[in-house]
């Protein structure tokens, strides 16, 4: 089955790291530059993320994400460079387009923020098995129902996508034209939706029974197949991130003074 999870299955420092360490990394990497307020801190966090991405051997998977984010960042640059309210200082012009310094500076900050968040999330998403995250959350006290909700999405959506193709074939077989212009194709879409929804509902009812007879509602404390305790590496990693965080706070205070 084709997975919709972006997780890359390999054994690296990052995949071994506890999911909470990586979640903590996201938080810290995003707020350091916001607290510190200097462009250089963006550089620091981006650099850190890059190091982790290289160490985690996920560069190939990250590149398309970056390429995609550049289309958004470019738009931000155009809009703010040209039209930001505070634009005063002309920086350069391309034919009739005049770019202003203030807008571009603002756009740079937004762009760096987008890139920073994207990379920090990539570090987490590409190296964490969804099932492990759910397990960790449940061990930390989240309800199994909440956990089930997350993990079932990863199993059931791909299954629904598979059904979709069969349903399309079944409708074509009864003379529904699915090839042709946009109007024909749009009209062909409607008879596809309700079988998908309905068969999922039927499946859901049966699945509810399946869960019941497997003791899903049991009041017992659930057993976990693995203990996900914070390891020494996790503690070191989190301590290091905390130091950086405190550092950025001190930086901010000293620049104020």
């Amino acid at each position, binding site marked *: 089955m084709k997975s919709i999870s972006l997780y890359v299955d390999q054994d690296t420092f990052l995949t071994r790291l506890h999911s909470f360490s990586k979640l903590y990394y996201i938080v810290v990497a995003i707020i350091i530059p916001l607290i510190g307020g200097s462009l250089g801190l963006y550089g620091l966090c981006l650099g850190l993320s890059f190091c982790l991405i290289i160490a985690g051997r996920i560069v190939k998977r990250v590149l398309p994400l970056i390429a995609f984010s550049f289309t958004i960042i470019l738009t931000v640059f155009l809009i703010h460079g040209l039209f930001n309210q505070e634009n005063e200082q002309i920086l350069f012009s391309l034919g009739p387009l005049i770019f202003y310094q203030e807008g571009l500076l603002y756009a740079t900050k937004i762009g760096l923020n987008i890139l920073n968040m994207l990379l920090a999330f990539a570090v987490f998403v590409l190296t964490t098995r969804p099932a492990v995250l759910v397990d960790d959350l449940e061990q930390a006290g989240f309800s199994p129902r909440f956990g089930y909700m997350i993990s079932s999405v990863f199993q059931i959506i791909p299954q629904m996508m598979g059904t979709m193709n069969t349903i399309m*074939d079944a409708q074509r077989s009864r003379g529904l034209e699915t090839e042709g212009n946009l109007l024909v194709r749009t009209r062909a879409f409607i008879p596809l939706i309700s079988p998908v929804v309905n068969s999922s509902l039927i499946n859901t009812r049966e699945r509810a029974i399946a869960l019941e007879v*497997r003791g899903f509602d049991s009041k017992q404390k659930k057993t976990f197949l693995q203990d996900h305790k914070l390891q020494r590496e996790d503690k070191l990693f989190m301590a290091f991130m905390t130091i950086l965080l405190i550092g950025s706070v001190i930086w901010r205070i000293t620049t104020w003074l």
Partner: protein
Amino acid sequence: MALIEVKQLKYRYPHTEKLALDGIDFTVEKGEFIGVIGENKAGKSTLCQAFVGLVPSMFRGAYGGKLFVDGMEAGKTPVAELCRHVGLVFQNPFNQLSGAKETVFEEVAFGLQNLGIPRGEIIRRVEDNLARLDITEYRNRNPFDLSGGQTQRVAIASILAMEPQVIVLDEPTSQLDPQGSEEVFKVVEALKHTGITVLMVEHKMEKLAEYCDKILLMHEGKQIAYDTPEQIFSRDDLDKYGIQPPVYTRVSKTLNISKSEWENKEYPVTLSQIVELKEDFPKKLTGRTRLEYRGDEKQEELFDIQDLEFGYTSQKLVIQNLSLQLSKNPTALIGQNGAGKTTLVKLLKGLLKPNSGRILLNGEDISGKSVAKLAGMVGYVFQNPDDQIFKTRVMDEVMVGPLHIGMSKEMATEKARWALEMVGMSHWEQENPYDLDLSERKMVAIASVIAMEPKVLILDEPTIAQDDRGRKVLGSIIKKLSENGVFVLAILHDMDFVAEYFDRVIVMAHGEVISDGPKESVFYEKESLTLARLEQPHMARLCEALDYEGIFLTVEDLKDKGRE
């Protein structure tokens, strides 16, 4: 005290007037194997759900009487507690997966985790049951990637790991191919010797007769009888309850050979019982003398398939170098899953395009036509009716196809009525298809294709989920349409059904046709059947055990004995 005691159990689903269970009353001793039979809607599944307490806790409704399992009252014990004592396995293998676990190992462990069993114990039980069901090699596979038979074994392992005293199997093989069913039946047979108490709902009477200590016969929610298989299958009124006894019993009845000559006649119900009575059977029978179809007859060709090749990926061909002519005789396509049967019919329907080779329909190449354009000519009923049903009224659903191919509204209504009558669903016209059960929805799907009056009707596994009555309706549809000049091509796993209603049989294995001809000859080509991992119809096997030399495919063939 017996392990299971059912006392005057009554139950009515919410918003209905009829009792789904009406005075069920029986007891089961520890270690017994009990079969539950009856036509669709007899209340069998409801009874299964009562055993695990889902009726009434999950479905609500009115509940009366008592059901005790090992002294616990099922109606009053929470399902989460009862599931430690009673396990339930049902039809659809995929819907029994938790849907939250990525590997077979984790899937089997899921229930045990919920019950808070200590970790070491979980691992031991999972390992044991993976081995017991012979699925250890799939332990790290995603359960959704397995075949139906494999998934059903994962489901059974998941239940057995919870170590219940009673396991309830609700038609565990009805949605599986013969190999998958065989895999599951092997497990069921092994269970019989473990001392676990088994309750099994099943339409395959030959199997039940072999395994069961006792059989519960149900009809419209009522308990008709609870007795030994011999007693139950020897009854004269089974037809009334939509039950066809095992072929062994039918043969013995036809020839009037019974085990005991008392008032209460008992006929043999298994092959081994027949062999014991071999002396009483006639020494010689000739079997079927007329062929309904001869392969060499020159007939108008409908499909001409020339050097067909197809693969879903460029590396692996599913269909290789296949040439075949199809004329109007009802034709069955048989073979194991993965043999290329569904791929072949999808090519005939134009849903897939061949890599090379041509398919001519009435002399015209179909590759240039869109699926929708072919729809009026070639009808295809999918295996799962839920893939196509989208209207909220049966009548509207059946009219969709005719309207698509350009019939007027009046015409479409007329054709839809005719089609619904043919599948025996006329009185359901105004119903919502989703309120019907699976076998009925399948009939609606068939009607919705027949209503388009195609010249070719392709059926993919029509007998799945049908009881004896449904099978007879299907048989009559095939006969009627063939008489009207429609070519019926069906993918089937049920050899007895093929032997009864089809003329020509095509055996496929690994994307190739390995045998093709009249059923009278194909079913006796043992080498190709073995190669395709198929079995002869029960009747043929039975008559071979009795050393009869003629061709026997159905019980009717015995009646030819006087015609020589």
